């Protein structure tokens, strides 16, 4: 499967009478975007705001971040099974508005999290401070249930991202990258001397507001399975995980999975990137056993020498992570796990809720308990009053001047467990 990914660089975003891309600027007709959101009768009002790198803006509480893309050639459309038909994606040509994003915000439940600061120390912790963001602030109708609100907001984000992505359909990309995954036999013949490596991508799947969708299917209802890496680049996997800001994998992360990009970069040079195994993180211990059994079985079946395993969330997914690691190692396959740490504010506590001697190659995304100070911003986009009850905030964390004292876990993407962040340890 082969995909040509064309990036059109976006350096600025502005409201305008006509939505278009010109001279590296994304012009957006605000009213058209509002109407897309309000097509869903679950919303009574909608506002759209801009947040650019360097501006004194705090976005909160962030639910998802989505990159605008469009399928230019080849079967299917972006977000198959969610917005477009369930066609197999990942081949042909896709254009990306690189440097732009749609950010959804909303008070789905009383406790919230997810801060993106566009400047200051907080901006250093999140990759989304570097993007030209179109922020959706959508008010649900009275009495809307939490899960309906979550779904409505999720779809508003996809639809607006697709609307913006369409603007790139007839543009000539600034850069085109080609990603190709051969069949197993072809790959083996091409690089017989290189170590064969697969990627085990763990997907959050725990129930209301903790779900991930694969071609529209809730991952918790699926057995561990395989997917071509380029399918993710066309939105085959999307996030419905609204909680846990620092270590959730947003839809943007799935579209731009750094493990996949790095494995492709080394493919044919230092290793042979065989493919992606996707597995879930369910609540039931028997499900964890079953899913990790299948991860190990598929890794063995693929005949790989090594796997990289990435996680999402903290707590019971640590058990899935360790089960995957332990069982795959037991097959004689080397593993590297990517996780983050909840090691207490001073970093001295045990980092994970589970452990095993076979997990001896670990990449950390940082300590989510680290306390940080976020200075006040000139403008809050979203809902300012939630800072005190944001996860990772604590009573009194929102000060009178608008500054916030909180744990790192409040910042969207700060300790991302795919490694899409700057924090780590050597």
């Amino acid at each position, binding site marked *: 499967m082969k995909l040509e990914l064309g990036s059109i660089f976006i350096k600025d975003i502005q409201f305008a009478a006509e939505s278009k891309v010109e001279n590296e600027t994304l012009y957006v007709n605000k009213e058209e975007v509002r109407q897309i959101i309000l097509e869903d009768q679950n919303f009574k009002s909608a506002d759209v705001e801009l947040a650019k790198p360097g501006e004194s803006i705090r976005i909160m509480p962030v639910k998802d971040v989505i990159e605008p893309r469009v399928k230019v050639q080849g079967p299917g459309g972006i977000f198959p099974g969610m917005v477009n038909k369930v066609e197999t994606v990942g081949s042909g040509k896709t254009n990306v508005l690189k440097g732009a994003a749609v950010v959804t915000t909303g008070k789905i439940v009383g406790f919230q999290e997810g801060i993106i600061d566009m400047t200051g120390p907080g901006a250093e912790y999140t990759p989304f401070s570097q993007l030209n963001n179109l922020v959706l602030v959508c008010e649900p109708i009275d009495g809307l249930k939490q899960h309906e609100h979550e779904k409505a907001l999720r779809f508003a984000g996809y639809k607006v991202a697709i609307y913006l992505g369409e603007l790139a359909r007839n543009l000539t990309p600034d850069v085109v990258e080609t990603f190709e995954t051969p069949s197993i036999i072809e790959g083996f013949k091409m690089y017989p001397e290189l170590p064969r490596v697969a990627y085990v991508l763990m997907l959050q799947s725990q129930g209301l507001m903790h779900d991930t969708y694969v071609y529209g299917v809730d991952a918790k209802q699926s057995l561990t399975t395989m997917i071509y890496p380029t399918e993710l680049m066309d939105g085959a996997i999307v996030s419905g995980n609204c909680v846990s800001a620092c270590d959730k994998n947003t839809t943007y992360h799935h579209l731009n999975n750094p493990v996949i990009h790095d494995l492709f970069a080394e493919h044919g040079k230092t290793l042979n990137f065989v493919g992606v195994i996707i597995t879930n993180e369910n609540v039931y211990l028997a499900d964890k056993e079953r899913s990790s059994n299948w991860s190990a079985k598929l890794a063995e079946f693929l005949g790989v020498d090594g796997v990289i395993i990435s996680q999402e969330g*903290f707590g019971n997914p640590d058990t899935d992570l360790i089960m995957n690691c332990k069982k795959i190692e037991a097959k004689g396959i080397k593993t590297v796990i990517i996780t983050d740490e909840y090691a207490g504010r001073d970093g001295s506590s045990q980092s994970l809720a589970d452990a095993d001697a076979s997990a001896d190659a670990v990449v950390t995304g940082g300590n989510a308990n680290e306390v940080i100070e976020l200075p006040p911003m000139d403008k809050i986009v979203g809902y300012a009053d939630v800072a005190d009850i944001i996860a990772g905030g604590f009573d009194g964390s929102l000060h009178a001047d608008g500054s916030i004292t909180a744990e790192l876990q409040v910042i969207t993407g700060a300790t991302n467990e795919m490694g899409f962040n700057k924090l780590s340890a050597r």
Partner: protein
Amino acid sequence: MFALVIFLTGGCMIITNNDWVYQKFKDSCNVLFIKGSYRDVLVKVRDKIQEGHELLTHPLSSSLKPNETPYKSIIISENKGTLNFDSVYIIENSIMSYDKFNKNKLINLTDKIIEDFKLIDLTVLESALDI
């Protein structure tokens, strides 16, 4: 599904401090309601495991850290057998994880937030039970 089979055959017990869970399942399942904290639920589960019950759902939530929600429901086997060391390992680790989190975040919760926490706990449990 496996989880559902256990549930329907009455092979499980729910230990919870969430009254929504108690009200919903008390007539169809063995529910032990704990008037106490998340930690009290963990400790009761540990006691039960030491009596020979088996842990069926993970005691820690995923995205919600232990200090972020006051409510927790955990499923264990109704039947007792020999001590299950996997269960002991998981519950002991979970209590250790719980204790390292700062607890002062759960002050001044509004009724709306309390209801949201109860709902999340209930839906996570329902997702485990596949209903």
